[in-house]
């Protein structure tokens, strides 16, 4: 299951959704808004997506994870819009028969999501300025 949402991410519901009788392991990754980025105080974030393509890429990623590991279920959910400090921006929840599979699949999914899904983050710094974050590009 993949989803883009402007609402608070209910990771508890996602976790219940992936639990399976044949799966002895559930691994959850939550990304949350930190109060500092590279030593600079942050006030909030804004996330923007190219939504049609982001969903397509997330579905591809789900299919890729299913092809590589014998998982039970996977949920990939990314929040969009304005997020306050501490809020959850992304959740990846995976169930699998054994824990190594669940850890590997969850970690792979969040690593690849950050590389291949067209979503961008704007840092609203505590000093009132803002910057879109584009790795490898100077401001």
């Amino acid at each position: 299951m993949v989803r883009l949402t402007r609402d608070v991410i209910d990771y508890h519901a996602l976790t219940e959704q992936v639990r399976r009788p044949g799966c002895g392991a559930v691994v959850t990754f939550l990304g949350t808004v930190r109060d500092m980025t590279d030593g600079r105080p942050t006030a909030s974030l804004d996330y923007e997506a190219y939504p049609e393509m982001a969903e397509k890429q997330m579905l591809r990623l789900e299919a890729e994870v299913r092809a590589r590991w014998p998982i039970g279920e996977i949920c990939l959910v990314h929040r969009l819009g304005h997020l306050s400090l501490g809020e959850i921006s992304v959740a990846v929840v995976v169930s699998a028969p054994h824990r190594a599979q669940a850890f590997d699949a969850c970690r792979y999914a969040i690593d690849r999501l950050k590389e291949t899904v067209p979503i961008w983050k704007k840092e609203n710094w505590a000093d009132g300025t803002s910057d879109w974050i584009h790795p490898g590009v100077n401001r």
Partner: protein
Amino acid sequence: MNLGSERPLATWSVRLFARAKDLAGTETIDVALPTPATVGDLRRQLAGQCPKLAGLLERSAVAVDGDFARDEQPLATGAEVALLPPVSGG
């Protein structure tokens, strides 16, 4: 003058995101190119048309119909084109 040998123009409305949108001050830029055209042709035309985007463009991907596209890829008339600066989700 032989009009018959000229390549007809087609126009793509390029979607912009994140800093590219802010730099251009708009969510889409229309780019007209002689056909057949490639993704690379569109990049060059876009950089000329909006010089503020030129630096970021070099670091950005181009998506055609929702897939990452290489510069040599042909651009079909009517394809949805988007400029994707390096992503930072998660």
